């Protein structure tokens, strides 16, 4: 079995190679469910997923119980991962209820056993040495940035975080972020918390103040595109994690593709589950998401 595969990642701040161990499928017991704003934070005992975790990776959770009519797994970004020690390893993920699958999850209590596959996906590339970094989270997209911030701080990097949402109850992780790094700016679209506006409003000054050499982000597609644009204007690379609908999470179904420009200049539909969810923002053709651009590799083979 091909357990481990080397995943090579590059950033402008230095090329590195992350050796990500392969995903495992395991049954994990829910240890705790806590309401956080309009979200639910799940803590699940999952030593296999916890063992190989890198920030940016996600877990695919089967929903609906043994005879479910919902066949597709739901994918959640991982954070709060505690590798095994005295106690078995645990993972955390945050659930926003917006359909029957997440509704089912929201009804589960500690003790329920979940069928998990993870950790999945390419993690955030970590610079080899300390570099100033700005992290931008939209809604529950803040979750995967928390372990990333920890990793960057451990390297000695100066880190600032911008956390935004449509309104106060849609914010996630701002307290944890404050505890972790202190410098956190909160924005809401309606001004119900922090400053009124978008995460991209305070981003330019944060980049300038810090002399940031990299921007990381996770959140809705439009936010990631906007963050990428601000970073580009400042000539800073942006590594962003997308939240794209996936059917399998493991790279076999081909449903979660995005148009992405490769290092060879050729654009392709790439799977956000195994070739992402983390992409360099400038490589993703945000404006073309949901279309079939004529210059995409293989578009001429579609018989149009």
């Amino acid at each position, binding site marked *: 079995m091909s357990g481990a595969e080397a995943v090579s990642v590059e950033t402008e701040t230095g090329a590195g190679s992350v050796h990500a161990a392969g995903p495992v499928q395991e049954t994990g017991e829910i240890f705790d469910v806590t309401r956080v704003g309009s979200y639910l934070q799940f803590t699940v005992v999952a030593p296999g997923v916890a063992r190989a975790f890198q920030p940016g990776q996600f877990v695919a959770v089967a929903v609906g119980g043994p005879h479910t009519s*919902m*066949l597709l797994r739901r994918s959640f970004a991982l954070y709060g991962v505690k590798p095994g020690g005295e106690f078995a390893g645990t993972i955390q993920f945050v659930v926003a209820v917006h359909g029957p699958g997440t509704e089912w999850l929201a009804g589960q209590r500690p003790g329920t056993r979940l069928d998990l596959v993870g950790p999945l996906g390419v993690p955030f590339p970590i610079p080899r040495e300390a570099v100033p970094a700005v992290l931008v989270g939209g809604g529950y997209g803040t979750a995967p940035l928390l372990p990333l911030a920890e990793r960057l701080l451990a390297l000695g990097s100066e880190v600032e975080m911008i956390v935004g949402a449509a309104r106060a109850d849609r914010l996630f992780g701002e307290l944890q972020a404050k505890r972790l790094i202190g410098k956190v700016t909160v924005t809401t679209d309606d001004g119900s918390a922090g400053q009124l506006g978008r995460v991209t409003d305070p981003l330019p000054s944060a980049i300038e103040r810090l002399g940031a050499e990299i921007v990381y982000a996770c959140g809705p597609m439009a936010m990631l595109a906007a963050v990428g644009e601000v970073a580009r204007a400042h000539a800073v690379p942006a590594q962003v994690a997308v939240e794209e609908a996936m059917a*399998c999470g493991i790279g076999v179904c081909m*449903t979660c593709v995005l148009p992405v420009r490769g290092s060879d200049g050729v654009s392709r539909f790439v799977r956000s589950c195994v070739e992402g969810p983390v992409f360099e923002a400038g490589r993703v053709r945000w404006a073309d998401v949901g279309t079939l651009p004529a210059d995409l*590799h293989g578009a001429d083979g579609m018989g149009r």
Partner: protein
Amino acid sequence: MADLSTSLGRLRLPNPVLTASGCAAAGKELSQFFDLAEIGGVVTKSIMLRARSGRATPRMAETPSGMLNSIGLQGPGIDSFLAHDLPWLKQTGARAVVSIAGGHTDEYVTLAKRLFNHPVDLIEVNISCPNVENRGQVFACDPIAAGRVISAVRRAAHPNVPVFAKLSPDVTDIGVIARAVTDAGADGISLINTMLGLEIDLDTLRPALAGVTGGLSGPAVRPVALRCVWQVHKSVPHLPLLGMGGIMTGQDALRFLLAGASAVSVGTAVFHDPSAPVRILRELDAELDARGFGSVADAIGFAHKSAEQQAELLGRPVETVPA
């Protein structure tokens, strides 16, 4: 423990559980979860002559006990497949069933010729993908067109490699299509491909898939698939069938064998449970044992027999299995 070996034409398999085309890529991803050589075989995603981007997103919609997909046969093209995917798959020790798809007969023939000198265990001819340009006019809906493609591929392919025709359930009489491809020289039939379906997104008030319609798969189609296997087995009883459509458990797999399939493909179940093929194989083994079947061969088409014939073959009346 029952003898699990089976045959698809001249191809002998150690057991009757394979992956399904389009649900296992070319095996690599699933090899993280189980040993590919352990199952009957890996059926690759349909490969075409040229690289294909596939359709725009959204490409998928979950539906009750199933899903719709409209991928549009995204793939690297035959050259890349032969250079990278097939050699990798074969070095795992897996049996490689290569699915091919094309826009016209010539394309299928070229693909079969390209595969001639490569280690292919079986060719599954996808003449029924609903996500191609001429939707609803796929080859598998027309007995003459279906027969033309299959006879051309049979002539072009290596004589030792079985050629299976993959049929669509979206036809008036699947037995007619089955006889047409049999007359054209098919060594067997794979069935069913997905059924054409539609979902409407209530946020956008428009079709949920960018491609508008998509192929329905999963347990929602299982009774349709089982009916098709039943009818085709009646229509061409001597021909080996590779049955598929919503198989989630060993019991489901057994139903397909009893209806006349010599082996089964596990497709959408993999999205739910990446180790489904090996789990289903284990479960099938236990289900055969529980009913006193000494072999897979004994179970194939068993549901077509009269109660008297069944009792004679089993050496006792068929009983319900104690719960």
